[in-house]
């Protein structure tokens, strides 16, 4: 069945995203991993709405996409600011609340 496969795929992608977010040290890559996790969620949503014939899932996906866009805009802005001050995008170099 297509939907089960899709769900399984979303699980796999989510795990991969999680690993990326947990193990990589590069802020930009971490952000990308988070995007990947979001996409996995979207896939699950779409699959479920396909299964239940309920459009709420699609609407949710649209919302998630918007949120992702906003998150990337702000996140990358932060990264740029960090890089200006820190000369680095390593997540471990930015462990203070202020400096």
């Amino acid at each position, binding site marked *: 069945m297509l939907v089960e496969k899709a769900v399984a795929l979303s699980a796999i992608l989510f795990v991969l995203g999680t690993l990326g977010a947990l193990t990589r040290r590069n802020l930009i890559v971490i952000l990308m991993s988070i995007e990947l996790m979001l*996409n996995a969620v979207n896939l699950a949503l779409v699959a479920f709405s396909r299964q239940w014939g309920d*459009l709420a899932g699609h609407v949710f996906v649209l919302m998630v996409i918007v949120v992702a866009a906003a998150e990337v805009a702000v996140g990358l802005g932060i990264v740029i600011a960090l890089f200006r001050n820190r000369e680095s995008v390593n997540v471990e170099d930015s462990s203070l609340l202020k400096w």
Partner: protein
Amino acid sequence: MIDFLFYVFAALAVAGALGMLLNTRNAVAGALSLVGTMVALGAIYVLLEAYLVGVLQILVYAGAIVVLFLFVVMLLNLRQDEFSPERLRITKIVSVVIGALVGIELLVLLPAALGPAAVLPEGFGGYRMVGAALFTDWVLAFEVTSLLLLAAMVGAVILAKRRID
């Protein structure tokens, strides 16, 4: 036919994700392999009869978000050494364990929740129906999201603009 396409795209998606995850050498390659995932996912959405979502997936994710990533990487002009392979740490092992746990759970939980398949109405997932749903049942959420976008826009501008002292 559809299953075959699904497998192809799923493989592409996973490959792209792995590429992004394992490519510790340069971020741009990672981002580009992520694009592969995005496009593949878009195709899978279409297979799942979520046409609008699929197209928007490609438009927004592949077309805008990842490009934004690339743009930033280039703007910061990160040289190779920024992405030197990282030292193995205890957190890495912990992460793998946790990831595995999460994966198992998802694989157990999600299919269990699926339930019987429903009959889809005509035009399901097309821009007409989704739009109708979006602007009738979910209009409040829609408006709130627009507010969120505005806030994010302002925030990004403030963050990224150079201090003029």
